[in-house]
């Protein structure tokens, strides 16, 4: 199992570097332009469209939290959606999973190795991105004193990792239960978008307040307080708990799955030979 885990991580080293440095670049653009745009953004801060996407432009801290701490994790989550649904469902679609499950490993070992590996890859990407963005913040000259230190930015970015882990495990679960990669990726993408906008809309419309609890983003702090108070432990526990539940569900479904058949659980598709 360990060798499969190592292989899974090794096979993604390009993704680790590409996404890690890509996210540094992304953060660099948004962090470095802020001092120059601060006054212009003040006049736009009350626009609903910004509230819809959760952007708070009134202060450096608010901007950092609502832009850098949202969009970098969102990009990481997009990678996790692509990678997790490609891992089981995608490998089954392209036929490589058949050979892996014919190896002397239990399905539990295969799934565990892949889940740990992909979680590790997300961790490496986020470490690279967080360190890079912390350095950029340290290098940028901001006239007024701010409550965001490079270390604060690093820890705040790292606190988004549980969110990525949840998406990885849901991706595995969908890959184990749905007929193919495309459907798994579509369902997870829709869920992710609904989760993101659901949280912001619920924040704007009082009557929709209760649906906040259904959104993953409700358990990820993107307000200025994260730079001073850090992430809520309860939020991290909830997200890790959700990830654990979906990992167990993925394990159960993967054990039962007829590999290579590709169909809904109640009607496992056509006969291939």
């Amino acid at each position: 199992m360990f060798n499969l885990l190592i292989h899974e991580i090794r096979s993604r080293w390009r993704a680790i570097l590409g996404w890690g440095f890509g996210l540094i670049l992304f953060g660099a653009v948004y962090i470095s332009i802020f001092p120059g745009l601060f006054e212009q953004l003040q006049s736009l801060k009350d626009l609903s469209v910004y509230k819809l996407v959760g952007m708070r432009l009134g202060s450096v801290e608010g901007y950092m939290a609502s832009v850098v701490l949202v969009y970098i994790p969102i990009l990481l989550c997009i990678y996790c959606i692509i990678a997790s649904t490609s891992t089981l469902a995608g490998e089954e679609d392209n036929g490589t999973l058949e050979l892996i499950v014919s190896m002397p490993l239990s399905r539990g070992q295969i799934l565990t190795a892949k889940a740990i590996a992909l979680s590790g890859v997300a961790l490496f990407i986020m470490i690279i991105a967080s360190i890079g963005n912390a350095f950029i913040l340290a290098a940028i000259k901001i006239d007024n004193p701010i409550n965001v230190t490079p270390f604060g930015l690093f820890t705040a970015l790292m606190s988004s990792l549980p969110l990525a882990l949840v998406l990885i495990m849901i991706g595995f679960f969908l890959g184990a239960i749905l007929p193919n990669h495309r459907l798994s990726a579509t369902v997870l993408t829709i869920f992710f978008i609904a989760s993101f906008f659901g949280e912001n809309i619920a924040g704007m419309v009082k009557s929709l307040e209760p649906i906040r609890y259904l959104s993953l983003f409700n358990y990820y702090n993107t307000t200025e307080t994260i730079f001073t108070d850090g992430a809520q432990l309860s939020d991290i526990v909830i997200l890790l708990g959700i990830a654990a539940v979906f990992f167990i569900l993925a394990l159960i479904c993967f054990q039962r799955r007829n590999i290579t058949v590709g169909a809904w659980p109640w009607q496992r598709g056509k006969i291939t030979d």
Partner: protein
Amino acid sequence: MSSEIIIQTNDLSVYYGAHRGIKDLNLSVQKGEVFGFLGPNGAGKTTTLRTILDIIHPTQGSATLFGLDSQKDGAAIRERISYLPGELSLYPSMKASYFLDLLVSLQKNKLDDSYLEQLLERIGLDPSRKMKEYSHGNKQKIGVVAAFMGKKELIILDEPTLGLDPLVQQTVLELVQEVKDEGRTVFLSSHNLKEVQAVCDRVGIIQNGELIKTEKVETLINQQFKRLEIHFRKEPPPDAFAIEGVKEISRDGNLILFEVSQDLDRLMEKAAPYGIIDIETKAVSLEEIFLAFYGPHNTGGKNV
């Protein structure tokens, strides 16, 4: 060949919703034999292999390998098996050498490096390139090497020579023969009936998901039907041999070729009045047997 049973299926059935995969399949493969598995596309060959390997779960029935349950003891069983899938898919950007190393690393048994070198040389494969750079035939060679390199007790091959040139096909058959000579077992699913006839001890014939015949290759060929060429003294009339189980294949004057699927008494009785100068038995190939089972006028091989 030993009497030890390596593969045993008991009423093994797989359904995909309303579709039939395989139905009440009962077969056994003994240690040291090369068992051929024949059937047209969609008959259930690959489904059987995948079910035995626990890639697909049976709807009912069970399979045991080395006396172990295919579902409960899957990992332990697969430690003793290597498998070449019929539709081999490889990681495009992975080097063949890395792929082979990966497969070895996922198993407990150590690899005999000198045997791997020997295999690569015999098959004619340079493993230093990426998968996407190989032709279809070369990818199949990688699969063949992967299947044989571990020297497993049971090798399951699904169309192993598909896409290979005749020389490499011959090498694969030699490898199968060597496995047999070492007392190991091969389960071979193939459409290439010449290779099945060349290396298999027994064959199972599957049709519409049901195993309709399991027989030694030699017995199958000899018992299923015979071809007789009779040289008559005087030419019999066209309807002289309208007998059940006897078919006139060709006629050249006094020389007639018959296909007979029952005892020869009735044919001899009808032939005697025309004077028999000579009778020659013609060899029947497994391919002809197969066509008798599955051809357009198939009668399940019972009344050809």
